[in-house]
């Protein structure tokens, strides 16, 4: 089989890279080891309830928002029904230590009002924080589409060295306000003491500028891409694992999969960077690169309960509100706790936002999640595909019970029936990430994430470990990798014309 470009992995970065390249008339083949394409955006169904795994809500989908502009460019936007959260929608935060409650609205003005009411003596710190987010994002091309892409990609931002923790503690001594301002860290997986202000700003700014839901959730995004890619004649080979990258005369020649060889002059690898090392013949990369990639620090994992309630009407207030419980101070992603359920928690019901009238209330499930460390499941770890020990099932059930107990205490939801449970082991095996690192490689201070380019001509990296995390970050990484092949600025110019 022959193609111009082989994309390894069909998560949102692979789908985006493939769709971007077909816009430039490249012939693309996607290889996916799972039976179904879509990576973390796929849903699964239990008792007729579709559950989102990786997509709960997103920013950047309003007019001029980068994800919307990109999806318009790629032709997937018209397949999607996107709903902005109404002005009352918010991330409702309960501070676990003080039991104070703060509504983090998806609007700069409303958020500032709310924070000033909740923390009346902290107006200056609040204003400084919000201004910093806006100022940083004004210098980033994905939030300021007038800017060129190349300078941002080639030279780090001056703000990239500023730590989030020292910034927040310089603004306020109030541990509750520190926790509220640090809370978007939940959405990129870096503990605030390791986080940089610039990455925090990119994520927080996206949501404060507006949150959006999509009918059908992440699966609808996958389906929209699949429809677009099918029209463009892209083959998606599922259930095939890439075993090696073929190299001829120091140039990529294709891939060898479990089913045969595919010849191509470009290969885009979208998986976890560490796993790439095993696919490339010895002697291609230097030892320094191997050591750097092997030592990358990953995000932690999550423990997730996907459940149903016997009285779905009681979930009304969950439609446009995501309920978080967070510890005071900067401990939001602290996973090294004796009772991890007492750390941060998110309760959300993205399915309730679908406007599909064919879905009954009983088909709109509820998701509870908390940060989790690999250490919790390490005693039960067996290789992917092998039966897990009975002790693991017991641990999982007990951990789910404790999480449900917390949800009852915090929000009064008492009758959640768990239909599925995701642990770090689940995410390791389903998403193919070491340690079940749900946000992949950390985008943290003092870490140099790999870029799209590699020393091997024709081999490119993409995915949330490279550019940025989350659906926006992974999508943009797909665009950027396509841009490295096609020329960054010409592709960026075409995308920007869709705003």
């Amino acid at each position, binding site marked *: 089989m022959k193609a111009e470009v082989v994309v390894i992995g069909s998560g949102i970065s692979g789908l985006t890279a493939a769709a971007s390249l077909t816009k430039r008339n490249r012939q693309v083949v996607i290889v996916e080891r799972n039976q179904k394409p879509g990576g973390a955006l796929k849903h699964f169904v239990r008792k007729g309830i579709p559950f989102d795994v990786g997509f709960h809500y997103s920013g950047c989908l309003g007019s001029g928002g980068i994800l919307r502009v990109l999806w318009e460019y790629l032709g997937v936007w018209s397949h999607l029904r996107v709903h902005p959260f109404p002005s009352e929608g918010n991330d409702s935060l309960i501070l676990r230590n003080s039991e104070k409650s703060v509504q983090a609205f998806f609007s700069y003005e409303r958020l500032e009002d709310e924070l000033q009411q909740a923390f009346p003596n902290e107006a200056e710190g609040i204003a400084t924080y919000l201004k910093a987010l806006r100022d940083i994002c004004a210098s980033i091309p994905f939030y300021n589409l007038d800017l060129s892409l190349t300078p941002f990609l080639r*030279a*780090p931002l001056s703000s990239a*060295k500023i730590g989030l923790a020292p910034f927040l503690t310089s603004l306020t001594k109030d541990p509750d306000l520190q926790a509220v301002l640090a809370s978007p860290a939940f959405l990129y997986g870096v503990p605030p003491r390791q986080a940089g202000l610039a990455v925090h700003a990119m994520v927080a700014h996206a949501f404060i500028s507006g949150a959006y839901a999509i009918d059908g959730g992440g699966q609808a995004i996958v389906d929209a891409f699949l429809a677009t890619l099918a029209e463009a004649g892209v083959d998606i080979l599922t259930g095939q694992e890439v075993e090696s990258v073929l190299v001829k005369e120091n140039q990529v020649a294709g891939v060898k999969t479990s089913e045969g060889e595919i010849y191509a002059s470009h290969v885009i690898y979208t998986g976890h960077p560490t796993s790439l090392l095993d696919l490339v013949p010895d002697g291609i990369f*230097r*030892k*320094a*690169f191997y*050591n*750097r990639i092997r*030592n990358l620090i990953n995000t932690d994992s999550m423990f997730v309960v996907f459940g149903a309630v016997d009285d779905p009407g009681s979930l009304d207030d969950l439609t446009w509100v995501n309920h978080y419980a967070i510890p005071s101070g900067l401990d939001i992603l602290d996973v090294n706790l004796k009772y991890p359920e007492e750390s941060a928690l998110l309760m959300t019901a993205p399915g309730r936002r679908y406007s599909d009238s064919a879905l009954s209330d009983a088909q709109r499930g509820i998701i509870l999640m908390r940060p989790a460390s690999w250490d919790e499941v390490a005693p039960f770890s067996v290789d992917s595909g092998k039966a897990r020990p009975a002790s693991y099932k017991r641990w999982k059930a007990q951990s789910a019970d404790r999480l449900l107990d917390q949800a009852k205490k915090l929000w009064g939801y008492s009758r959640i029936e768990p239909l599925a449970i995701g642990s770090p082991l689940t995410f390791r095996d389903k998403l193919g990430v070491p340690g079940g690192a749900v946000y992949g490689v950390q985008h943290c201070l*003092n870490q*140099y994430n790999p*870029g799209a*380019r*590699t*020393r091997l001509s024709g081999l490119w990296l993409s995915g949330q470990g490279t550019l940025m995390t989350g659906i926006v970050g992974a999508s943009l990484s797909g665009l950027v990798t396509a841009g490295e092949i096609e020329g960054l600025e010409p592709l960026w110019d075409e995308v920007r014309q869709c705003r």
Partner: protein
Amino acid sequence: MISDEQVRRRVTQIMAEEFELEPELLQPDATLYEDLGLDSLDAVDMVVALEKAFGMKMTDEEAVRAVRTLGDLFELVCRLKNQQAAKE
């Protein structure tokens, strides 16, 4: 405290091992890009390797970008090591 001479020896050793370079090529006047064949992608790997070996951060990108020869690199690492020692 580690002496400047020890820093030079250690930098040479790291460059030889991590980039699989012949030790006799590693002279102070050797340019990283032309003589040693490194490129801009290797530069990040080099920074990561040196940071790890010396337990310090090379966060001044302009100073790193200004490095042309191995001698420049010796000088930069020695300067950063001495700054770090002064702080401690």
